[in-house]
């Protein structure tokens, strides 16, 4: 077993234990919220997945820019891996958000600044992944993906700040770390613990995805070698 495997399995065990602890806390320890009842618990996945999805797309920009400056395909692989996993979290926050909106606002969707910019972010991410599948030539694929990553990151910042810049249907910042009104201490602490658990899950998924990128590069190298024979 390599060091990388040991880290992977160790992190997987830690993540599983932390998620179990958090689910126990969310469902069996914390009380219902006064106005929203049991449904407020959706927040424990909605908020951390939104944070991870948006931050991930921002981090992918760093690696995309590194590719544009160095032309090293490793940076492109890392950017692609992080964007793909971020899209999983973006999908998670979009779905959980509409479900929460349905019960709190009585509608599945509202075309306000926060929700619309989040949808645009999701579409840019989906476009990024489709673009990578559509282009076979590695250099063109990496260059165009990096450019698209810039758009995604700018929009990610707009989504993040939209609840401060505009009056929207979406709640204003709630967490005390964003100068919001805050939640009851036990409720807010559980949010951060679940953020940590989902962050570990994201790292695990990125590690799996990176291994596949390495395998893809090996297949492409062997294919070139076979053509040269």
């Amino acid at each position: 077993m390599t060091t990388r495997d040991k880290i992977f399995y160790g992190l997987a065990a830690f993540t599983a234990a932390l998620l179990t602890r958090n689910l126990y806390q969310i469902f069996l320890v914390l009380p219902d919220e006064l106005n929203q009842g049991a449904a407020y618990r959706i927040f424990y996945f909605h908020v951390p997945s939104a944070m991870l999805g948006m931050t991930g797309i921002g981090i992918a920009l760093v690696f995309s820019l590194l590719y544009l400056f160095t032309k090293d395909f490793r940076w492109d692989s890392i950017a692609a891996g992080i964007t793909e996993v971020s899209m999983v979290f973006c999908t998670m926050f979009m779905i959980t958000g509409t479900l929460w909106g349905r019960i709190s606002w009585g509608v599945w969707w509202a075309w306000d600044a926060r929700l619309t910019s989040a949808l645009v972010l999701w579409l840019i991410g989906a476009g990024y992944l489709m673009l990578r599948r559509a282009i076979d030539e590695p250099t063109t694929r990496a260059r165009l993906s990096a450019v698209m990553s810039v758009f995604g990151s700018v929009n990610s910042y707009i989504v993040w700040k939209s609840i401060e810049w505009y009056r929207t249907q979406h709640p204003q910042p709630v967490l005390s770390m964003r100068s919001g009104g805050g939640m009851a201490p036990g409720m807010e602490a559980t949010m951060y613990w679940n953020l940590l658990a989902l962050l570990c899950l994201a790292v695990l998924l990125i590690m799996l995805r990176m291994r596949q990128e390495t395998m893809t590069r090996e297949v492409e190298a062997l294919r070139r070698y076979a053509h040269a024979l």
Partner: protein
Amino acid sequence: MDQTNNAFLFYGFAAAWLVVIGYVVLLALRERKLKKQLDQMQAMISSETANRKGK
């Protein structure tokens, strides 16, 4: 109201986990395909190399 609340809570958590599980299944299928491609390429190259040595 409470029943609706619980139903939406269930849908929310089910959707969140289904997205993650779906992605993990996708990763597993992709990895299997890549391993197969890698094995095929390696087998093809080694047989081609053996043929050239034979000549």
